[in-house]
């Protein structure tokens, strides 16, 4: 089985600010990390590899040269191969153009049985790239997967919602976007880290994957960012504190009843 995991290097969002002039994220001085949801996708792939002998895990990312760091992290955890899609032509791509670019790179690899993504990236939070790539590749896609079982060329997947889950079956190849609750991502091993240090990563260009330049970059991206802003903190409301919980609960219930909410 060949599993491709698409990952993204993202700024550690605990410290992110938005530049009000350009409507873009301020990345200066912010630590870059492997997108946390992608860690769950990678872990799902590595667990499948442990379960199904002969499985190969390839990790793919698109980004600037320094995105090689997340690929090294992936090798440290046990990825067999990595691809760094890196070219000026990709700069400014929105989710549509990014999905296209990733799909061209996946087509260049040995045929994938499974393409995994994190549920969403914590910087853009669109959750569009996974399903987008699946569409370009003509694969079925199950978003919000928390569990997978593979047997006889088919996958049985649990797709979770806030109030329950669906159990879906699909033929392979298929694409999944993976939830945090799917697993606890492992940490890199010593031998993995040593292998990652020796890794000489050659960037893969748009030309190398045969991507159509007219579908790449800012100009090919249909998305236009009109404005990004931090929502103002909520004000108003009533705050009660300092009394017995039972008293406060009673008061809350009375108020909800008065407003006919319960």
């Amino acid at each position, binding site marked *: 089985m060949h599993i491709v995991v698409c990952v993204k290097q993202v700024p550690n969002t605990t410290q992110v600010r938005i530049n009000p002039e350009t409507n873009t994220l301020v990345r200066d001085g912010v630590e870059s990390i492997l997108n946390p949801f992608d860690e769950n996708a990678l872990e799902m792939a590595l667990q499948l590899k442990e379960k199904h002998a002969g499985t190969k895990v390839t990790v793919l990312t698109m980004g600037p040269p320094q995105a090689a760091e997340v690929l090294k992290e992936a090798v440290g955890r046990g990825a067999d191969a990595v691809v760094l899609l890196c070219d000026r032509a990709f700069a400014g791509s929105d989710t549509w153009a990014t999905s296209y670019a990733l799909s061209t790179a996946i087509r260049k690899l040995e045929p994938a049985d499974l393409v995994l993504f994190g549920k969403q990236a914590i910087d853009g939070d669109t959750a569009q790239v996974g399903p987008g790539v699946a569409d370009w590749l003509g694969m079925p896609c199950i978003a919000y997967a928390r569990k997978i079982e593979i047997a006889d060329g088919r996958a049985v997947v649990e797709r979770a919602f806030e109030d329950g889950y669906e159990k879906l079956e699909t033929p392979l190849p298929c694409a999944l976007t993976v939830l945090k609750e799917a697993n606890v991502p*492992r*940490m*890199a*091993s*010593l*031998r*993995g*880290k040593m292998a990652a240090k020796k890794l000489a990563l050659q960037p893969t260009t748009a030309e190398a994957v045969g991507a159509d330049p007219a579908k790449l970059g800012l100009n090919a991206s249909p998305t236009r960012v009109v404005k990004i802003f931090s929502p103002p903190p909520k004000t108003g409301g009533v705050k009660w504190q300092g009394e017995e919980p039972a008293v406060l609960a009673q008061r809350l219930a009375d108020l909800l009843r008065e407003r006919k909410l319960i």
Partner: protein
Amino acid sequence: MAELNYGLSELALEIRGMVREFAEARVKPVRAELDETGHFPTEILRELGKMDLMGLYIPTEYGGTFEGDSMPNLIAVEELSRICIGVSVSFAANGLGADPILLGASDEQKKKFLPALASGEKWAAYALTEPNAGSDAGSIRTTAVKKGDKYVLNGTKQWITNGGEADIYTVFAVTDKNRGARGVSCFIVEKGTPGFTFGKKENKLGIRASATRELIFEDCEVPAANLIGREGTGFIWAMKTFDVSRPGIAAQAVGLAQGALDEAVTYAKVREQFGKPIIANQGLSWMLADMATKVETARALTYATVQSIDRGVKDYSKFSAMCKVYASDVAMQVTTDAVQVFGGYGYMKEYPVEKMMRDAKILQIYEGTNQIQRDIIGLALNKEYGAVAKK
């Protein structure tokens, strides 16, 4: 944070980073629960195995990553200890159990038993202590009688760390009761051998996550091929093991004391009384200064001992005893002071320092009480200065 340059190798620094991150992420969130319930940290050790960290002391030819530098393993013990020595002793006891094999076993025995320990697939334990043989380890009564190509073991071992959890045990037994300590031999005994069972898990003051059990041997037949070295060499392996393992106890002590210092300073900066953080009081800041100084001197002596062993210093028994006794006394003092810095909160189980203080006590007791360590140092001094006087 400012730190001394101990000339650590790239590998040692890598291991420090890995284990520090691991201990914060995986051990810290569960240490109070492990302490409360006494659950053995099975998942934690399994994960350390997957991360290639269980074979840091085992040579590469037997599946580990050891190539002459003992610091990576020592630092792994220190970093786990910073968060929980109940976990770190369960980790380090594997090395203790494997030491007689590393020191005295044949190449064939090493090839048979070490790779599974290096990968973390199997765990080890060291079995010397008996109900009536603690500090006086030469007086053990477990017997091993040769019968064809087997030895038949009878007797009881007490307080064996990783007992019941480990798969491979290095067991000391008397093969010739007329020869005292020279009649002791060391055997590799595998879990599941008929006649080999375990007693109850002990309920302890500290290191409660670790498993401490009795080992019971009743007509337990062990292949003669599992004898380490020759008959009668067991006590030598037992003592040589302690010479190399005692710095590991010191590393536990350094890590534990560092963890307590971290907690104490952090708390002293945020706790306000009389309108200012308590660290602004000279009495308290001097206390913290003494704690920090003790931790660093303990670390320096421990690292120097291990680095000297690696550099080929032969006569290191005295220094192993020194770093064990010194660092464990420091750990007891620093953890006690950490509770004092926290005041009433320190006495409460909601905060980690009372556990650290309870845990620290064992360091002054196991792998030779601190009185035995001082005996070793005293004997060495007597011998060394005697030689000078004769000149």
